[in-house]
């Protein structure tokens, strides 16, 4: 078992002929993900790596392949359109890897995708992997191993670091999800925690946060109120200096400075084990699962 993607996931790659899209499409195919089609306007009818059919539009690709998920590697100025095109084609699960999507674009995309009933992961995220079943995005497959732990993170390479240390300690994963660090993203910590709570095979969850915003604090409350499985966490940015903040609106809107100390305190108060170093996640998990 796993969350969001598994061996039955039939994946499209939007931007499959681009530099990043083609590189990662190959990696995903090698990992065993079912890549059923690609989309690049103007290259419809061609084949990627002589096997994967390419289409001009997402709607056509869905009709021909029965895809139920898509991953987006298009340049930032076109990413909003690509996400909406995928939602319009009723793809239930949309992952956007693209970094640098303007946040005002995302205010429109978020509403659009939700109204069409799709789930969006990202933008500016590494995607997700259910080890041994399916990899969607850019998380290196070889650092993961199947097992009972769910992982959700706002970061990219820090996720790899923690997964790597877990795998070295023989603690495998059901699914590792990178939700991305942008101010507006489609899937948040709570969405993933909820899914891990429901997933029969997941027995414990790791949550990796960063400074900024209040998502981690909200997630910690959710853990206390709604979860039966143990959750441990790490927050990056304990030594980050206070910024030369402009204006007051940021502090007024959230009533919080979003510091690591605040978040770690919220973890502690709500029964989420707090790792001081990334490596401590492993010990906390061992203790929590005993």
């Amino acid at each position, binding site marked *: 078992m796993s969350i969001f993607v598994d061996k039955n996931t039939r994946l499209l790659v939007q931007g499959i002929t681009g530099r990043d899209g083609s590189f990662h499409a190959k990696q995903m195919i090698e990992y065993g993900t079912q890549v059923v089609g690609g989309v690049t306007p103007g290259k419809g009818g061609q084949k990627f790596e002589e096997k994967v059919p390419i289409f001009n539009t997402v709607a056509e690709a869905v009709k021909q392949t029965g895809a139920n998920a898509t991953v987006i590697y298009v340049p930032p100025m076109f990413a909003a359109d690509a996400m909406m095109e995928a939602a319009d084609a009723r793809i239930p699960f949309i992952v956007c890897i693209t970094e640098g999507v303007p946040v005002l674009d995302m205010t429109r995309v978020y509403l659009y995708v939700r109204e069409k009933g799709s789930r969006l992961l990202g933008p500016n995220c590494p995607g997700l992997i259910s080890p041994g079943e399916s990899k969607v995005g850019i998380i290196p497959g070889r650092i993961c191993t199947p097992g009972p732990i769910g992982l959700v993170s706002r970061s990219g390479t820090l996720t790899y670091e923690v997964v790597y240390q877990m795998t070295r300690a023989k603690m495998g994963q059901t699914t590792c999800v990178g939700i991305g660090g942008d101010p507006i993203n489609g899937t948040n910590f709570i969405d993933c925690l909820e899914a891990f709570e429901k997933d029969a095979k997941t027995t414990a969850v790791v949550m990796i946060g960063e400074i900024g915003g209040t998502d981690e604090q909200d997630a910690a409350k959710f853990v206390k109120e709604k979860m039966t499985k143990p959750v441990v966490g790490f927050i990056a940015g304990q*030594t980050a200096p206070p910024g030369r903040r402009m204006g007051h609106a940021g502090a007024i809107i959230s009533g919080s400075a979003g510091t690591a100390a605040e978040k770690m305190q919220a973890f502690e108060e709500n029964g989420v084990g707090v790792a001081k170093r990334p490596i401590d996640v492993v010990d906390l998990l061992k203790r929590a699962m005993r």
Partner: protein
Amino acid sequence: MNIHEYQAKEIFRKHGIPIPPGEIAITAEEAESIAMSYGGTVVVKAQVHAGGRGKAGGVKLAKTPEEARKVARDILKLKIKDLPVQKVLVTPAADIATEAYAGIIVDRASKKAVFMVSPAGGIDIEEVAAKTPDKILRHAVDPRYGLQGFEAMQLGFFLYKDVKQARAAAKILQQLYAAFVASGASLAEINPLVTTPTGEVIALDAKMVVDDNELDRLPEIAALRDESSEERSEVAAREANLTFIKLDGNVGCVVNGAGLAMATMDLVKYYGGEPANFLDIGGSSNPEKVVNALRIITSDPNVKAILFNIFGGITRTDDVANGIVTAIKENPLKVPLVIRLTGTNEEIALKILTENGLSAMTDMDEAVKKAVALATGSKVA
């Protein structure tokens, strides 16, 4: 990207928001002659990318042109949050009856642009928000429709009982929303929004932060960047496509990815050291980036040891290794170097380093401990 008050005011004016005139001076003498041209009392305001200007002595009243020269001279000598003041805005002092606050920001929680207005504006607005939250009214804007007239009026009536003033405020808020969207902003703020004794509603201050991701499609806004008011090393890093923030410690850090970079800094501190910087070389690597990163870090005389922490995913560790070798050949290091790398093409990277007389570690904690020991001169634990 932050823009200056005078630049934000220019944008607001273009959208019709009533703002008193003002001119920029870079010397005390210029400030004096601007004050003379206005006559009467003026305000001299530091133009710097930092909050808390007033409290830092960066905003002063001057009753005469001579006084304007004197306060401008003092303000131009100031450093506010480490940033030197290089420009002042000179503007006629307004008669103020009341001070309100109006701001708009992209809100993570509601995933929309949210207006916040308060009749209790001024420099203590954050305290107002914390202690008397009922004095703040929020309104999330549906991006498909923008700020409608009736919505703007609800906000206007929250600010002012007088219908004329409420209408004037509503108009300003719609203009502020238009300026916000057209500039690709993530924050726009008027604090204070004042009423004059004759009942006019005008904006006395302006702040705007632009979403960096918008700059490619908004060249006019991108042109507002004032590099002279930024840290030199931060400008160099941006030009090299690196994210860099200078800090006060002595362990220089080169990392791929912001989360891992922060975690590395945290670990430096955990083992008793102090990071000299935050530096993220980003996802797709090339050797050139590493060369630039090393150049920027070694230009800081405080750095006593350099730590690379690279977890190869998209980043190929052999690219990083090649960059390190090239950089050192061009410019031999005067401080010790600790390299931790693992992930994509790790075997090739190790071979490149060994052939060039360098070595690398694979464990993050061990590498950080070693770098801290080298920087502080203590023994490696």
